């Protein structure tokens, strides 16, 4: 264990901005990508079901 206290951990030996910036941005990008993939599927399924409904009512 390299850390004597919680504040020392967050200070990252003076590199807090760079280390937490890198890890934070990577996590944020991955989370956003997952949300985008999920939304695309949800919207697509809704569209396809709507199409299917309108087809069955017109024919």
């Amino acid at each position, binding site marked *: *264990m*390299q*850390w004597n206290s919680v504040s020392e*951990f967050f200070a*990252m*030996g*003076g*590199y807090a*901005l*760079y*280390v937490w*910036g*890198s*890890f934070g*941005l*990577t996590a944020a*990008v*991955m989370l956003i*990508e*997952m949300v985008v*993939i*999920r939304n*695309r*599927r949800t919207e*697509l*399924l809704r569209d*396809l*079901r709507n*199409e*299917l409904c309108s087809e069955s009512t017109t024919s």
Partner: protein
Amino acid sequence: MKTRVIHWFKFSSPQNFYFLAGRMWPWFAALAAVLMAVGLWISFFVAPTDAQQGQGYRIIFVHVPASQMSMFIYIVMAAWAGLGLAFNTRLSGMMASALAPTGALFAFLSLVTGALWGKPMWGAWWVWDARLTSELILLFLYLGFLALQSSIDDPRRADKACAVLALVGVVNVPIIYFSVKWWNTLHQGASVSLTSAPSMASTMLTGMLVMVVAFWMYSIAAALARVRSIILERERHTEWVKHAVE
């Protein structure tokens, strides 16, 4: 879903691959989550402080996985694209376009985490160094691929044009990889190589490798989850899609 006997050759059809991908991606996502938890724990609590760079070196645990994923995804994308050109299979183009956004994101993360590392260590966010410049070109290749894909309405024609772009651009990947050897760069050399002993503490190396595998699992999960939407979009007028969404 009903359980079925697996015949592997069947999965080259988009219909069968849709269901296969649906069953596989949650496993890859779960593996990614577990490995990332382990990797982060090693990154911050097991790996020692670096003698030269103090705690700042810990950026390596996201920078290296993101960078190698950006290069590897490009190679896989180009391979799918090449398969599509050679055999005219529909799934190939779909897989190539499912991989491109994830690859582009990793190229972006590689550049930004690199800048965040460069600033404290080199004193500059950016230098026109061979490694950095060729990685920037990789990001532009991904963006070009995505732009070309969305600019052609017919997806099959878009696949062919994008496949040519992807295959031509693949020459950039060895340039990125060997740039630190071929040119006198500010960027440090390879941390891991097959021919020499690793130039870092073994716990640092373990942490990095765990994160690399975690990023692999994440990328596979993301590409499989995304390709399902692409398959449904492109096959939307077929009977099986109508049954699948009901």
